[in-house]
């Protein structure tokens, strides 16, 4: 069984919702990313989402955009991200890792070359923000050949007929976008999320993770009530940036601690009943 399927099966048998953490590889530093990923697992992440930095991340809000800029300034590349995953795998064989990025760096690397290298490094799935189903055939074939899951986004604007098309192609899980907007934006509307998740569930048995706009324990708990997993990204990166702003000499260890503390509080919020 794939790591993703095993993880969602375990969560289901435990009656718990999963927590997916997103950080950008190479931010705050390339040398610290592997350690940060391990720390996120300790803090409660069930699935790790690793952002592949791109010069033009057009679906990201300001917080994650700046993370991409810092990572690129630190010299991070697609090969660098694969190396980070491989290094992480030496100590952790269980936790699934999803790469999330944009088409161009992957296209440049070559779809088949990327799929082979990803499988070799221990990647489990890929989200390519700007490859909707209409443009996905070539990479889909390459990923399938090495049993990597291609993970699709479904947005509040996706019509029901399109949801059907998407779930038929999807593997691993469905990533349901909570708000119309870029990452880190907006106030999520729990009722609307619930309606959208229900619509998706009526068409597929795949697990549904909800992301965009989840900032803290409260918003995570609201979403966990209807979803199989909750994705947190901008809030983690923001927590690391704030430490550095308040204390310019903050060590990388302190920054990591800020992210893991937030993730831990979100995990606890999800596991406790509403106050």
């Amino acid at each position, binding site marked *: 069984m794939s790591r993703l399927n095993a993880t969602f099966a375990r969560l289901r048998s435990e009656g718990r919702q999963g927590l997916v953490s997103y950080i950008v590889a190479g931010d705050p530093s390339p040398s610290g990313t592997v350690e940060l990923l391990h720390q996120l697992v300790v803090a409660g992440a069930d699935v790790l989402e690793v952002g592949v930095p*791109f*010069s*033009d*991340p*057009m*679906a*990201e*809000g300001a917080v994650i*955009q700046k993370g991409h*800029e810092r990572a*690129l300034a630190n010299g991070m*590349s*697609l*090969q660098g991200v694969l190396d980070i995953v491989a290094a992480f795998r030496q100590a952790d064989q269980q936790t699934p890792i999803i790469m999330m990025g*944009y*088409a*161009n*760096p*992957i*296209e*440049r*690397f070559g779809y088949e070359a990327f799929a082979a290298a990803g499988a070799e490094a221990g990647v489990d799935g890929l989200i390519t*923000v*700007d*490859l*909707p189903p*209409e*443009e996905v055939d070539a990479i889909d074939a390459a990923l399938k050949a090495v049993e990597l899951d291609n993970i*699709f*986004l*479904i*947005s*509040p*604007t*996706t*019509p029901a007929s*399109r949801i059907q098309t*998407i779930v038929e192609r999807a593997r691993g899980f469905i990533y349901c*976008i909570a708000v*119309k*907007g*870029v990452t880190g*934006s*907006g106030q999520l509307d729990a009722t609307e999320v619930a309606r959208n998740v229900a619509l998706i569930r009526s068409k597929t048995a795949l697990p549904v993770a909800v992301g965009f706009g989840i900032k803290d324990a409260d918003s995570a708990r609201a979403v966990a009530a209807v979803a199989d997993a909750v994705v947190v990204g901008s809030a983690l990166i923001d927590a690391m940036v704030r430490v550095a702003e308040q204390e310019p000499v903050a060590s990388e260890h302190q920054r990591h601690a800020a992210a893991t503390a937030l993730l831990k509080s979100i995990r606890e919020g999800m596991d406790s009943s509403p106050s």
Partner: protein
Amino acid sequence: MTIDITPELFASVPDAHGRFGPFGGKFVAETLMSALSDLEALYARLKDDAAFQREFDADLAHYVGRPSPLYEASRLSDAIGGGRIYLKREDLNHTGAHKINNTIGQALLAKHMGKRRVIAETGAGQHGVATATVAARLGLECHVFMGEEDIRRQSLNVYRMKLLGAEVVPVTSGSRTLKDAMNEALRDWVTNVDDTFYIIGTVAGPHPYPMLVRDFQSVIGREARVQSLAQAGKLPAGLVACVGGGSNAIGLFHPFLQDAEVAMYGVEAGGKGLETGAHAAPLSMGSPGVLHGNRTYLMQDDDGQILDTHSVSAGLDYPGVGPEHAWLKDIGRVNYVAANDEEALAAFHRLTRVEGIMPALETAHAMAYAERLAADMSPDEHIIVNLSGRGDKDILTVAAIEGIEV
């Protein structure tokens, strides 16, 4: 690429997926897909709708001032001593550039969709001004995204947009130029997709934009074709246009594509020289990739990151290019060449002094190449240059380069 160049070929693109051969497509986040489908469906319905076309044509005639003249630049042609140079005077349009042809068309689409707000990206500010203008006329809220660097070098256009009631939003990410303005406009659109129409300013972006912008701009070439036959008694030997995203170029070229005897030259920004890397010439020097919703030629590094560009003209300072141009390059129908900053500045001065026509710095790139081309032609041949815009917006830039305080 081995492809038979037939008249039918040019009518066959884009295909149903918005592709021009391997280029084009719809590479956007899922949130935008249904907005693009709606736009595609609306445009498919209105494209051949007589009432819509009448409305568009009437606006072009009475608001923009079309047809724009085809002017024989006699003194310039005599001075060069080769082929005759004709200028398609898009600079005489309302707001001073070809950009208004497209914003009139897209504003009509926005109106049909009942959107109350329009957004645009802009580099030189000409598309921003043209968008702010149609928004004022229709009473629509208007936000224009513009890189900080461009706000500085096109300050006159920034003030024009404000006078027209638009909000100019400074973009501080990346290289702070056109590419980043487009990222930011796409982010705004994702967020406000219900009530907002995105008026893209060139033949780039996801399908159906490259197609509909081409269709709206093709009025340039249709007029030029008729005018050339009437005034010169034949089709031109060549067409020349500058290429930023490629809208003024495709507008001129498209109605001539099936005329095999008409050679075509798209002029990219050579910046400090193609050999220096500091330029904005993806067709001349780049490689295929995916950016801003389509597959096309891009300036990128080995890791697929988009490179910073350089051009003296803000409107050409873009690392990508419309997908139809990428295809026209690969099938060999259009020649893509470059003129550098220095050559463009020299051409700017020459046209101003010899003909009393001050071109935009973007347009000056086309003029620079046209002079070279005409020099090697005989006087019984002629070429048409798309004089895409007037240069008033650039006088502060030119003055600064020459160390003059205005």
